[in-house]
């Protein structure tokens, strides 16, 4: 039940962010589904695999980036259109804010623990995107134009 609720909230959050970024039409729906997929995969991985806390973030990002790249190829749109809004549910907003609160309150120890964890999550998200993007990148942009040139 909790997983289902979180997935729906992630879908709503992604929808809101994609609207803020002016995404329109079918892409708005597809990107929002991406947000739900990223949250669902994160929660399932967290539940099923008892590993380091960064691992679910990493694989959830890989799943989301794969989804975005595939949708980009299917609908001939930039992958970032789907990726940006859908990634927001995984962004460690709470960690960023909590770090700042600890800093303001002068709790140096708690600040360093929190900021370390937050940066680790942000780095993991970036690595997940990089890994998939690097595989798709050259292939996608080149094939796009090649296909068009051949017509």
């Amino acid at each position, binding site marked *: 039940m909790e997983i289902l*609720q*979180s997935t729906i*909230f*992630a879908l*709503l*959050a992604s*929808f*809101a*962010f*994609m*609207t*803020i*970024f*002016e*995404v*329109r039409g079918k*892409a708005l729906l597809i990107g929002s589904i991406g947000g739900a997929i990223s*949250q669902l995969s994160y929660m399932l991985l967290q539940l099923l695999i008892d590993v380091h806390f960064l691992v679910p973030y990493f694989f959830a990002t890989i799943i989301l980036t794969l989804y975005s790249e595939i949708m980009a190829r299917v609908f*001939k*749109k*930039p992958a*970032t*259109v789907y*990726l*940006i*809004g859908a*990634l*927001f*549910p995984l*962004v460690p*907003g*709470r960690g*960023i*804010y*909590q770090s*700042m*609160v600890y*800093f*303001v309150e002068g709790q140096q120890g708690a600040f360093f623990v929190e900021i370390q964890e937050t940066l680790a999550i*942000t780095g993991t998200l*970036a690595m997940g*995107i*990089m890994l998939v*993007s*690097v595989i798709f*990148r050259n292939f996608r*942009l080149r094939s*796009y*134009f090649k296909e*068009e*040139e051949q*017509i």
Partner: protein
Amino acid sequence: MAEEELEIALYAASENVSTSYKSIDCLNLGLWLGFGLMSNGAETIRVEDSVTRILSAYDLVNAEVFAVSNYLHVSALSSSGEPISFGKRMRGSSSNNLDKVDRLNDLARRITSETPDPVLTLNIVKQIIDAPGYPFIIHAFAVSLSAFAFALLLGSDLVPALWATTASFIMINLLRPVRKHYANPIFINIIGSVLITLLIWPVRYTIYSADSLLMMTASFMYFFPGIALINSTRDLMAGDYSAGLAKMIEVLLLAASVAVGSGATLAFLGRIWPIA
């Protein structure tokens, strides 16, 4: 309207196959399209790639494209062998309009495959760049919805989530006139975070005080520079370190500006209005 103009440009191209277009027009088209992509939040590598392919499609000799996060330069040789070059600088930070990025990206692919009349196509590019975004009320609704959804996603109760929604709605309305006069995103983030902190602070004196952290976090997500972070990552991965690092600095400054605005307000409120 834009579609109709593109059809006219394509028709002109098919009727006038033997006539080669002026290099200066083709270069100008590439420049404006690249500028449109850059100013609406596309990755630098996409800007360079799209413009390079457009210039190649028009068979421009020695065409070169260089882009950093806020500047685009294109150059080529004219049919008479004269060098031509144009540069366009983006003032301030890019906006986040992924619809325009998508439309310009789509147009770039069509230009590459169909090489339409560059003068007519330039009008379409300018129309896309100048096209209005969503009405403000939809933007305000989306900002409020993002705070509501994130508050619930982070585990808050319904009432605090609705409080965060209201705070975000008030904040975005108060920021509207500020944005008209001061477009600097760092300044906007500081003002926005001060407003959110002020609007959510009173919750500490209610039974929902435990949720104040979640409410603040949910409301601050709007200021998180998501597009800059992802573009920075993709540019770095594509080997464009100058653009990637410049955007990464932008991400850090924008995140720090939220921390400064909220942190200073929290410290101030804590002194004048301490929790019993």
